[in-house]
């Protein structure tokens, strides 16, 4: 219990610290947030045009796709704001920068992933919220469920990033592969899973779990089925455990970078 409180304080401390350093350059921060908001908004343009020509696509309409975008953007934003370094795990391992985290008493995995915040990701969070509320009538009523599913989505993304990043423990610099895998997860998650052929769909529920980042939570927001919510929670818990397992198994193979660095 004591350890959990210590970890929570570490996470909160880093969050506050990262946000305050961002605020030192307020103009750049606001520019990045607004830029990302516009960036995300323009991605919906494609679907807006497409649904003018087709009423629905395998059961999904514009509102449904907006819900997918909402939950993916919100989860992506949360993951990159709170655990921004999870997406740099491969680079940190390969360059030997992991030493810094190993010398301190905090849990190295948690400490590693929370020590960076992506600033534009605040724009993703904002976009996710706005687009979800605009996707249909009385959406604010399901806002608590949206936030819960966004959190689960963020955990799935973070855990996946840690798993692919940890490949660096075995194959050297896995930076390019990890980046590619995370990009694949994000790309696939933005499309309704039902448009893909069955074999690809199996992959999207397992190896690249994009379905659990986009379509599954979005479908829950359209139609809450308890068994699917339980499945979503179980999958999230499972992938988080796998990520921690893979990271610590890999850590046993880690050789120090033998680099003298000072970290501010």
């Amino acid at each position, binding site marked *: 219990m004591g350890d959990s409180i210590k970890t929570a304080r570490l996470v909160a401390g880093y969050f506050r610290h990262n946000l305050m350093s961002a605020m030192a350059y307020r103009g750049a921060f606001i520019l990045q947030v607004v*830029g990302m908001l516009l960036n995300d908004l323009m991605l919906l343009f494609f679907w807006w*045009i*497409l649904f003018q020509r087709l009423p629905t*696509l395998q059961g999904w309409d514009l509102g449904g796709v907006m819900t997918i975008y909402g939950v993916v953007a919100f989860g992506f934003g949360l993951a990159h704001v709170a655990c921004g370094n999870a997406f740099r795990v491969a680079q940190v391992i390969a360059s030997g920068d992991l030493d810094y985290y190993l010398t301190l008493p905090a849990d190295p995995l948690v400490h590693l992933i929370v020590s960076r915040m992506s600033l534009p990701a605040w724009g993703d969070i904002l976009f996710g919220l706005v687009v979800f509320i605009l996707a249909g009538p009385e959406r604010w009523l399901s806002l608590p469920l949206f936030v819960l599913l966004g959190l689960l989505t963020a955990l799935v993304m973070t855990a996946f990033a840690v798993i692919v990043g940890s490949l660096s423990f075995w194959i050297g610099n896995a930076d390019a592969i990890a980046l*590619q895998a995370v990009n694949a997860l994000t*790309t696939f998650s933005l*499309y309704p899973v039902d448009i*893909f052929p069955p074999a690809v769909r199996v992959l999207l529920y397992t190896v690249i779990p994009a379905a659990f980042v986009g379509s599954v939570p979005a479908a829950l927001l359209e139609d809450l089925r308890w068994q699917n919510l339980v499945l979503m929670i179980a999958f999230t818990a499972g992938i988080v455990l796998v990520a921690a397992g893979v990271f610590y198994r890999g850590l046993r193979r880690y050789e120090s970078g033998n680099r003298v660095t000072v970290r501010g």
Partner: protein
Amino acid sequence: MIRYAAVVTVAIRQQLAYRAEIVMRAVSMVLFMGVFMALWSSAYGVSGQAELAGYSLAEIVWYLAMTETITLSSSRVFVEISEAVKAGDVAYTLTRPLSYPLYQVAYSLGGSLPRFALNLLTASLVVGLGMGRIAGSAAGLAAFLVTAALALVLDALVAVLIGLAAFWIEEVMPAYWIYQKLLFTVGGLFLPLEMFPGWLRGVVRWLPFQFISYVPARAFVAFEPAFVLQSIAGQVAYITLFAAVVALVWHRAQRRMVLHGG
């Protein structure tokens, strides 16, 4: 001119040195084309029509293969320029016997060329196998290569302009995101302009973005000499305009530079 050709050659060699990155780009292309083929097969299946806005399924997929080929080869030279501006390194380039913006355009084109060749090959293979046919002609391919080359020059000029914006704004990435998304949308990267509502098509045909994505891809899948000639004229006009703007901005930027001894 020979000096800039040398810059292009060096950039090509530099690009070829990063083989792992090249493979990753090919994987990206396979992924994107796979998603597009699944999406559009579904869309055509649902619509029950053989053509949407004049495009058959094979034509739209080949159209997207061509727009992606250009986009994934596009310039990221603004990263280097903005870093050089922020770090002050840009001052050292003033003593070189080259124009800094032109050097960056040449460097960007050299980096784009190997990527372009690989992207074209990968996209054509994936889409050719997936669709079972080529939705284009030899004349279309020639028109594509000419208009795509002009598209990459125009794109490099925009990238240099975004990089030079670092003289005035702290962070240039948001400017790049917006430019990239304008290519995605009104540039016709994801959808040919024929699919747009009439009023929007009327607006976007005057903008520079369609000359980078839509024009070369459309020239490939539906070759029409009049369309190609008209488009080339538009591309050349925008290249001239952007070159003038880059020259003007660079002139202003130089006046903002403060040099200290040392």
